[in-house]
C-alpha cells in the first residue's frame, strides 16, 4: 500500500519545474479563495460590530407602535418608559432613545430628518453624546458627517428645526450643531439629528417617554415588558445578513471562477500528463503494475499537487493574509455607499473552519479532476500505450 504514495511523491518531485508551476498556480488559487471568503466574512463581521456598537447594543425594546420600516408610525411610537426598563437604564444597563419626525431648514432648504433624543451621559452606544448639554438654552445637536455634508452644516452652525408635538401641533426653533461625528454606521448618521433626550422630550411634550430602549452589549437578560417588544440581535441584524448574503452570491461567482481555475490547472496537467506519459503508462503495465494501481498513482499525484499547493500557500499566504487582517484594505468609496457599515477600510476575517473548509474543498476538487482523466487509463490498451497511442 505504501508503494503508490512513494511512487507518486517520486514522480511529482522528479517532474521538477512542471510540478512547481502547477503548485504555484494552485496555491495562488488557494490564497485568493481564502482571501475572497475572508473579505466577505470581514464585511459581515465589521458591519455587525459597528452596528452593535453604534446602534443596536445587546438588543432593543421597541415601543409597540414602532416600526422602523414605516416612517408614518414614528409620530405615535412613544410611551412612558416602564419601570422594568427604567431600572435597567438607571443601573447603566440600557439607554432610552426617543425618535420623532422633523424637518430641518439648512440654507433655506427643506430636509426631512428623524430627531433622536439620547441621554448625554449614556455609555451604551458609541455615539459621542457627551457633546450634548441638556441645560443649554439653545438645544444642542449632534449630527454625523454624512448629515453635515447633505445639510452643509458645521460645528457652531444654527439651523431651524420643525416638529410636531404629541398632540400634532407644529412647533419650530433653532438648534446649534455642537459636534459632528464620524461613524461608519449610516443609520445613525444619514438624516439623523441627535438631541439631549430631555430636550426632545420637552420639545415634543413627551416627558419620560421613549421610542426604544437599547440594552448594553453584555446584558444577557431581557425581561418581558408589557407594551414593548424585545428585538434580539438575530432579528436586528437580519437585514445586514440578508444584504451580505446577496453580496455573497455575487462574490461566489468569483469563488467559483477561482476554483474553476484551480480545477483547470490540475485537469490540464493530468490530461497533458496522460498524453505525455502514455508510453510510461504502458511500461508500468508491462512491468506488472495493475491498471487500478496506475489510476491510484495518477490520482494521488494530482492530489499531492493540492497538498504541496496548500503547503506553499501556507508559507506565503499566512503572512500575507495576516497583513491584510491587520491593516485591512482601503476601499475607494465609503462603505455607506453600499448601505453597509464598513467604513473606508475593510478588514478580512478568517476562521479556522473557513480555512480548513476551503482547503478541504479545493483538495476534493483537485482529487476529482485528477481522477476523471486518469480513469481513461483504465481503458487504455497497454500495447497502444507502449506505442504512444491513445485510443
Amino acid at each position, binding site marked *: 500500500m505504501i508503494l503508490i504514495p512513494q511512487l507518486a511523491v517520486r514522480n511529482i518531485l522528479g517532474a521538477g519545474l512542471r510540478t512547481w508551476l502547477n503548485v504555484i498556480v494552485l496555491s495562488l488559487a488557494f490564497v485568493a479563495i481564502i482571501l475572497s471568503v475572508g473579505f466577505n466574512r470581514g464585511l459581515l463581521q465589521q458591519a455587525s460590530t459597528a452596528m452593535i456598537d453604534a446602534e443596536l447594543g445587546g438588543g432593543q425594546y421597541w415601543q409597540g407602535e414602532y416600526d422602523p420600516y414605516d416612517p408614518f408610525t414614528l409620530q405615535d411610537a412613544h410611551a412612558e418608559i416602564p419601570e422594568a426598563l427604567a431600572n435597567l437604564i438607571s443601573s447603566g444597563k440600557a439607554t432610552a432613545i426617543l425618535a420623532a419626525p422633523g424637518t430641518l431648514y439648512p440654507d433655506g432648504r427643506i430636509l426631512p430628518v428623524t430627531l433622536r433624543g439620547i441621554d448625554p451621559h449614556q455609555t451604551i452606544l458609541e455615539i459621542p453624546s457627551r457633546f450634548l448639554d441638556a441645560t443649554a438654552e439653545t438645544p444642542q445637536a449632534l449630527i454625523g458627517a454624512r448629515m453635515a455634508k447633505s445639510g452643509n452644516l458645521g460645528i457652531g452652525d444654527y439651523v431651524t428645526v420643525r416638529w410636531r408635538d404629541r398632540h400634532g401641533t407644529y412647533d419650530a426653533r433653532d438648534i446649534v450643531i455642537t459636534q459632528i461625528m464620524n461613524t461608519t454606521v449610516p443609520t445613525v448618521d444619514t438624516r439623523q439629528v441627535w438631541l439631549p433626550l430631555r430636550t426632545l422630550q420637552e420639545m415634543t411634550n413627551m416627558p419620560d417617554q421613549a421610542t426604544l430602549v437599547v440594552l448594553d452589549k453584555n446584558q444577557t437578560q431581557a425581561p418581558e415588558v408589557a407594551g414593548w417588544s424585545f428585538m434580539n440581535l438575530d432579528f436586528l441584524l437580519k437585514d445586514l445578513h440578508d444584504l451580505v448574503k446577496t453580496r455573497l452570491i455575487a462574490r461566489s461567482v468569483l469563488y467559483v471562477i477561482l476554483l474553476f481555475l484551480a480545477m483547470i490547472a490540475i485537469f490540464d496537467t493530468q490530461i497533458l500528463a496522460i498524453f505525455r506519459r502514455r508510453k*510510461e503508462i504502458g511500461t508500468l503495465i508491462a*512491468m*506488472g503494475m495493475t491498471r487500478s494501481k496506475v489510476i491510484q498513482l495518477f490520482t494521488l499525484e494530482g492530489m499531492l499537487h493540492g497538498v504541496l499547493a496548500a503547503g506553499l500557500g501556507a508559507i506565503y499566504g499566512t503572512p500575507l493574509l495576516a497583513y491584510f487582517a491587520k491593516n485591512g484594505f482601503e476601499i475607494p468609496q465609503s462603505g455607506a455607499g453600499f448601505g453597509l457599515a464598513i467604513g473606508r477600510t475593510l478588514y478580512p476575517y478568517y476562521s479556522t473552519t473557513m480555512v480548513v473548509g476551503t482547503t478541504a474543498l479545493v483538495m476534493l476538487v483537485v482529487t476529482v479532476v485528477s481522477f476523471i482523466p486518469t480513469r481513461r487509463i483504465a481503458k487504455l*490498451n497497454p500495447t497502444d500505450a507502449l506505442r504512444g497511442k491513445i485510443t
Partner: protein
Amino acid sequence: MQDSVQIEARHLCKTFPMGQQQVVALEQVNLSFREGEFAGLVGPSGSGKTTFLNIAGLLDVPTGGNITVMGQPSDGASHKAAAALRNRHIGFIFQTFNLLPVYTVFENVEFPLLLQGMPKSQRKDAVWQALEWVGILDKAKARPSQLSGGQSQRVAIARAMVKRPAIVLADEPTANLDAKNSHNVLQTMVKLNEELKTSFIFSTHDEKVIQYLKRKISLEDGRVVEDSEAEARKHEAELQ
C-alpha cells in the same frame, strides 16, 4: 532443463480492425519456447513479430487459438493475474528503451522490485548486481536524459533482468543503436542467457541481432515460414 516449456502457442490468431476491414497480424501460429532459449522472430514490418511478443507477454489477447505462458493459459488470466505473471516472470526490453524519465538509473532498475514488494536491503543488492551485469554501475545516479542510446538500452536490460525473470521479451532492441552499441548490448544478453539461463525472445529484422540468435523463426504475413529449430529437428530425425 532445456525441455521445460515456458511459452506454448497453438493455432494462435490475431486480427485488428482497420476501418471496415480486419487486418490479419497472426494466423495459425504454433510455436513453443523452452527455458534458456535465445530465439528471434525475424521478418519484415507487419509480419506479426511484435504482435506475437505482446501476446506472449500477456499485454494483448489473441483473437483465436491459445497461448500458455509459464503454465498460465492467457484466455483464463484476469488483468491482475496477467500483471502478476509479468511482474514475476517476464522482463521487457523495448526499441525505445521506455525508461521512466523522472527516475534515476538506479530507481528505474529498482522499479520492478518495488512492485514485487521486495525489502529495501535485498532490493539494493539486486539493483547493484543488475547494474554490474550490464556494466553501468557508474551511471546509477544519472537520469535517462543524461544517457546515450547504448547506455539507455543497458539500463533497460538491467531493469528487465533485475527480478531474474524466466523470459525476456525484447522488441527490436537494437533498432535505435549504432553497430558498436548493438554488439555490446547483444553480447551482454548472450552472457546473461548463458549465465542465468534466462530465455530471450527477440523480434527483429536486424542482421546484427540475427547472427547472435540460436534459434531463428521467420514470420511472413502472420505465418511462421521457417523455424531453425524445427529444421534442425527434422534434419536430426532424417539422420537417425
